[in-house]
């Protein structure tokens, strides 16, 4: 590698990217001491930069992203050693956007593109769940029909293929790079040794896997079938202006989904119905065949992109077991009650603080101010006092009324 090396991890979503980003951000000081920069002063700096690069709106977060890519790229250019960038939505970048990104790293940088990939039979359900966690109300079967339609019409399908079509993502990002600078990390099958995916990532990023213990904090956990069905129903009730995006993020996505419902691991997991599973397997074989000819650096095994045989007993989230949904709903209500009580206690405490501050202020202002305020308050209920106050205001030439 040249002295200036830029490793761009461009996705895909639902392939352990949050896990990698957590490790890199947590250990950024130790990495910097070794000459490896993970730039950005906040955890989501790379996400905001990706929004800026692709001019993407994201529930209002884009307002914080103006100029974010150029700021990140300036850090990249200024660093003399290795830089790692990582965000999964970068997978969706169009060719002109990729050109802009690569050019922004400056002359003389050796750019490596990294894409982590998981088989379609796990990615398709995971992407639908991700959509539900982002306020969508589309049913599972409708979603499957949308993404399997060859026209890729509509936002759902265009996004899915934009971030999940492994050969096309690598074609867009790797078209101008030597194939050995394009790295494909495959996600191990379920049941693989714990830590294997992290070791693969560490290998391609040039890190000592054992030196950077994965943090226990931030992950992007999956939901069971009844829990996903519940959130979809909640979305239908709180969308279209009922719950603001920032409140949805705090109470639905973080509190309910990530901290509560994802802990329920005993419920049925989401898979693909048999017909779609067969379709996914055929498509995966095409991808594996195409990827095998490109000369990319494969970390893992291309065969891991082939779905496992279809498991028996597909659990349909469009027709979930109602008792299980009710059980998840009960737990959600209990969680929200506890949170409501905590917020109410916090509000009481703040009110007490405010009243104490007002008392202190009144004491400082003195008797004349308190008398005037009593007159103004009294004028609300006393017509004579109100008329007198109106005359006074007119004579004085000002009014507190707003037009």
């Amino acid at each position, binding site marked *: 590698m040249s002295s200036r090396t830029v490793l761009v991890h461009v996705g895909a979503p639902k392939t352990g990217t949050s896990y990698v980003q957590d490790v890199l951000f947590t250990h950024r000081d130790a990495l910097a001491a070794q000459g490896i920069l993970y730039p950005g002063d906040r955890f989501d700096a790379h996400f905001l930069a990706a929004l800026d690069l692709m001019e993407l709106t994201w529930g209002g977060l884009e*307002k914080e992203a103006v100029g974010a890519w150029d700021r990140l790229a300036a850090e990249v250019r200024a660093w003399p050693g290795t830089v790692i960038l990582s965000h999964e939505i970068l997978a969706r970048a169009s060719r*002109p956007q990729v050109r802009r990104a690569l050019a922004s790293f400056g002359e003389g940088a050796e750019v490596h593109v990294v894409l982590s990939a998981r088989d379609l039979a796990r990615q398709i359900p995971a992407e639908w769940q991700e959509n539900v966690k982002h306020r969508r109300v589309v049913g599972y079967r409708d979603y499957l029909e949308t993404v399997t339609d060859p026209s890729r019409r509509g936002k759902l399908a*265009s996004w899915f293929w934009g971030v999940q079509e492994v050969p096309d993502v690598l074609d867009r990002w790797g078209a101008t790079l030597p194939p050995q600078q394009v790295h494909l990390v495959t996600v191990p099958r379920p049941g693989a040794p714990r830590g294997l995916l992290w070791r693969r990532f560490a290998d391609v990023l040039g890190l000592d896997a054992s030196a950077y213990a994965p943090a226990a904090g931030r992950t992007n956990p999956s939901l069971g079938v009844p829990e996903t069905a519940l959130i979809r129903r909640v979305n239908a009730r709180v969308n279209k202006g009922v719950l603001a995006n920032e409140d949805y993020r705090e109470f639905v996505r973080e509190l309910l989904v990530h901290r509560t419902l994802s802990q329920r691991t005993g419920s049925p997991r989401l898979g693909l119905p048999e017909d779609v599973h067969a379709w996914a397997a055929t498509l995966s074989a095409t991808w594996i065949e195409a990827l095998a000819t490109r000369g990319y650096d494969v970390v893992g095994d291309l065969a891991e992109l082939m779905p496992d045989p279809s498991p028996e007993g597909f659990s349909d989230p469009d027709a979930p077991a109602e008792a299980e949904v009710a059980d998840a709903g009960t737990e959600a209500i209990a969680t929200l009650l506890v949170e409501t009580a905590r917020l109410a206690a916090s509000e009481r405490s703040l009110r007490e603080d405010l009243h104490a501050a007002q008392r202190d202020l009144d004491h400082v202002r003195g008797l004349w101010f308190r008398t005037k305020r009593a007159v103004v308050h009294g004028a609300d209920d006393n017509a004579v006092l109100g008329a007198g106050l109106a005359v006074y205001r007119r004579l004085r030439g000002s009014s507190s*009324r707003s*037009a």
Partner: protein
Amino acid sequence: MSASDRAREGEGEGIARAWVAHLRAGGTSTWREARQDGLSAQGAGGPGAVHATIADPAGDPLPGAAQLELVRRLNEECRRQGTFSDTARRALVDLALSRGAPGRGLADHPLDTGPGQSGETGSDEATGARPATGAGPAIGAPPVDPSAVPAGELARGGAGLLVEILLRQAALPSSAARTTPGGPDDRGTPGAQGGRAPRRPPTGRRPWGRRFQLAGAPATVDRARAELAAAGHHGGARPRRVVLLAPPLERGLGEVWAARVQAGAPVSWRDFAARWSRRDDLPPSADLAALAATWADLVGPGRVHVLFSPDTAGVAEILRLRRASSRAQRAVPGARASAARPSGALTPAGVQALARVNQVLTIRVPAEQRDLLRAQVRAALPPRGAGEGASAPALPGDRGWVLERAATTLEALRAGGYPVHGDPGSLSQLLTGRDRARGGDVVDAMVTALVTVVGAQPANEGG
């Protein structure tokens, strides 16, 4: 893929590169025409219009179908407007071919260069990408004839291009936040008078004039206010009378949407309508019952007049302004001109195009500088002619909720005891026609704005 298929595909790419060069040179042939021209030229041995141009260099990736169709339409509009140099046009086209579209949608729209005659052209936003005609591996988005790219995708690319041009033109001075927005001809420099505050223009406001206030649907209020101002009646603070202007509720909602988009909201008509329908509520300036109650608290219910199917003559009659003097009109130079150009007069397609631009402004431009750019886009969009429809199309979906809202509004107004003028039944009148701006019209508005913005720059050697 057979050898003959590969040969035909290579031939298709050659024609495509000639077509790209044709577009760069200002051509307006469609891809279908280019293929017919190219194929017939090869067959007959004579150069066609497209074939005669020097092909785009091989090796560079072909631009996408959406970029190419947008460029073709820009060339058509440049010819139509005919106001600036080919250098400026070429710069516009090069920029359009080099940048990606903002936001969501397909990452790429590959041009269909496969063997076989290019298929039927689609129409507007309802038409999606066609399946590939080639027999290659099913990887990447399906190739598409540019004329079949959905209008929404063209408008998406156009919005990104428009913002990019405005930023590159350095129309954004470092002191943008301190510059008064007002369109491309509004380049007044604050403080240019040696630090003295500019003299306030005469308003024609008379101290003995009647104190009134107008409220209700934004564009209707703006229009009436401008016409009354032109006659020397300015209303003002602490009104003695308030007139609520009440066009049909559906039309009023459209005015609120148009006003919000012009103030920066990145919301489409469908999303706006769905939001209020879902809430089963009305936005504040369309909620006549709430407006009336608020004003009644301040001036008394007897002085809050509700005017249905409002026009300025009706307002003047309620306010007893019939003796609007010609002297007052002479005292307000330019008032007539401003009255003739109310701020809300964009077509529904123009408002929809501006909503798309707002999305890009949100991500590209700091908040304090967006108004300036928006004003430039606003001024470049085609205006709505006098008497040319409403600010928005009809409400989409079931319109029962708006009829119910109209009924409850009338009930509340009756219960409030406000003086009512005109036909209250008009509040329930529904618009006829489409429930969304036609996608093609949105693209046309965007293309017009793009060419107007480029043509408005003095550096572009106009003519």
